[in-house]
């Protein structure tokens, strides 16, 4: 299938945004390396392998649409328009970070771009997204909310309660379940009685859609339909994006619970490689690829420099921002 010039621009944008997330995450991991002086602390959950979901979904959102994110949230933040430099600075624990260094990877957001926060509590974003949807309806706005969560969260009571409330009030929410097959180490086959999480939607009388989470075009198309429905007052949709995290749950996970064969099967569906192939077919030149790659590298480099050069929070920061 040949794409029009306009569409090629869109494809290039997808490619750029996914590459940005991939390189950002690779950079993040490198800072846990002792040789890199441990610039990032604690733990982190990288998004590598799942980039098509965040990018495809957020490409169909307006700036003032809301998202709630997860523990694996850097990709969502970047795709929603977050500044890589300020995200990196937050991970470095610096005062220029989105949370002035008080939040860290699982606790940051930016209301000005509709990001209601990454979340360290599995499923914690589901009710918050429901509340944001309620707020939109109450204030008669035409925004929508995207609620990102994983397969693990779909077994929390909050999943049931939130989808039920969103359904009974017909709230403008798109529930995006990123099914990467493992809740930390627990495979879905041990924790679900149904093969497809999307089928649970019928329990709430809403539409459940299965999405190829490795294909940004499929994600974008199915999100677009759900967003249109939500914006038009048609209520919530549950999209189950079948995807895979190429790396472990968190930085120290050696993935003993899954096979290398399984990993290499999924690697073949790498959303970035798929998009590269697609763009090659569309006749994108090597120079154009290099240009995108260089631009992304520059952005990441700038982000790291910004984070590095930024000051630590002052001791006064400990007690600010607790109360209004």
């Amino acid at each position, binding site marked *: 299938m040949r794409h029009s010039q306009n569409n090629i621009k869109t494809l290039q944008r997808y490619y750029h945004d996914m590459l940005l997330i991939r390189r950002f995450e690779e950079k993040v991991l490198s800072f846990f390396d002792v040789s890199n002086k441990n610039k990032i602390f604690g733990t982190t959950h990288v998004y590598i392998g799942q980039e098509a979901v965040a990018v495809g979904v957020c490409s169909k959102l307006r700036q003032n649409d809301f998202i709630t994110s997860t523990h694996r949230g850097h990709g969502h933040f970047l795709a929603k328009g977050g500044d890589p430099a300020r995200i990196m600075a937050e991970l470095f624990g610096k005062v220029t970070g989105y949370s002035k260094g008080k939040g860290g990877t699982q606790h940051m957001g930016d*209301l000005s771009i509709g990001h209601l926060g990454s979340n360290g509590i599995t499923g914690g974003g589901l009710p918050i997204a429901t509340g*944001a949807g309620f707020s939109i309806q109450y204030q008669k706005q035409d925004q929508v909310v995207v609620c990102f969560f994983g397969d693990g969260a779909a077994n929390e009571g909050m999943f049931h309660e939130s989808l039920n409330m969103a359904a009974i009030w017909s709230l403008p929410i798109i529930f995006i379940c990123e099914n990467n097959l493992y809740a930390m180490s627990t495979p879905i086959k041990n924790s679900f009685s149904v093969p497809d999480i999307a089928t649970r939607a019928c329990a709430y009388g809403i539409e459940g859609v299965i999405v190829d989470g490795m294909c940004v075009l499929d994600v974008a198309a199915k999100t677009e339909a759900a967003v249109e429905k939500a914006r038009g007052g048609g209520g919530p949709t549950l999209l189950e994006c079948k995807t895979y995290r190429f790396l472990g749950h968190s930085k120290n996970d050696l993935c003993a619970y899954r096979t290398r064969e399984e990993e290499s099967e999924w690697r073949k569906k790498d959303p970035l490689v798929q998009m590269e192939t697609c763009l090659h077919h569309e006749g994108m030149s090597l120079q154009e690829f290099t240009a995108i790659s260089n631009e992304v590298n520059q952005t990441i480099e700038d982000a790291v420099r910004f984070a590095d050069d930024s000051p630590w929070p002052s001791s006064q920061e400990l007690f600010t921002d607790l109360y209004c």
Partner: protein
Amino acid sequence: MKNVFYLKAIQEALIEEIERDPSVFLMGEDIGEYGGCFGVTRGMLKTFGSKRVVDLPMSETSFMGMAVGAAITGLRPIVEIMFMDFITLSSDAIINHAIKLRYIFGGGVKVPLVIRAPSGAGKRYGSSHSQSLESLFMNFPGLKIVAPSTPADAKGLLKSAIRDDNPVLFIENKGLYWTKGNIPESECLIPIGVANIRREGCDVTIATYSRMVDLALEAAQDLATEGIHVEVLDLRSLAPLDTDTLFNSVSKTGRLVTLEEGYLPTGVGAELSSLVVEHLFSRLKSPIYRIACEAVPIPYSPVLEDLAIPSKDKVIATIKKSCNFQSNTIYVRNKWNHQEHRMDI
């Protein structure tokens, strides 16, 4: 001034704030047609419609999170927890989200959320419908907690809570709903974080709040006839605590008894006691004594429930113990049968 029930004072605050601010709305289980489990919102659905009085499914875990989501996106939700005991189901949204979001967003968000929680025992409701869990929540930074004892304070503090841009836990005691008191005809906001001396006295301070204030006042009245002058301090706010008023009172009397309806271990009294010892150690003439719900699940049988929760007799006895303190005598409780015995040291 007009004389109204505590419950009515709460309702007046809700009505006035809903009328004043279009972003204020109520959410809770059975608060619409039914009027709330205790009737606090009776008639409000009819007046304000289902947009402002939102009946919720029984989903305490998520509806509290939903209130947080609504609060950070422009609304001012007031959530009714049917019985305070059920707040444990909602605790994740409060502890991990509501009170942290502002801090972890580096100040980039506000969470104007009020949680109304009917607390208190003495109604023979048994162990899951009688607790006063406020001290549990005093452990968490970022939350304000108020616990009014009179209709005027209930109305004034609730209005302040609704206008506050921070999450506020509003403790309304079930045992106070049908008690009466005077409230001003005109608007009167009570600031959060300011205690109130309800009765002045020079011998001993009793620091308490909510329904226990009446018990303290009754005991103080009785003790006055015996020449013991008790200062009754109504804390009104548990977070932030009005330590100035507390310290001034205790530095005057030199004695402190704390009184609460929640459980004794690590309760409000433990916090007050620690603060006073830290700051007024040399002024104390006697140990600080704590009166609270005994450390047992609140029993159903009237005989047992009355033994578990603070009584006037217990308050009087404890105040006397404080006033008659001699440094060579201590009272020790057996850790198994809880009987107190005197020990001379």
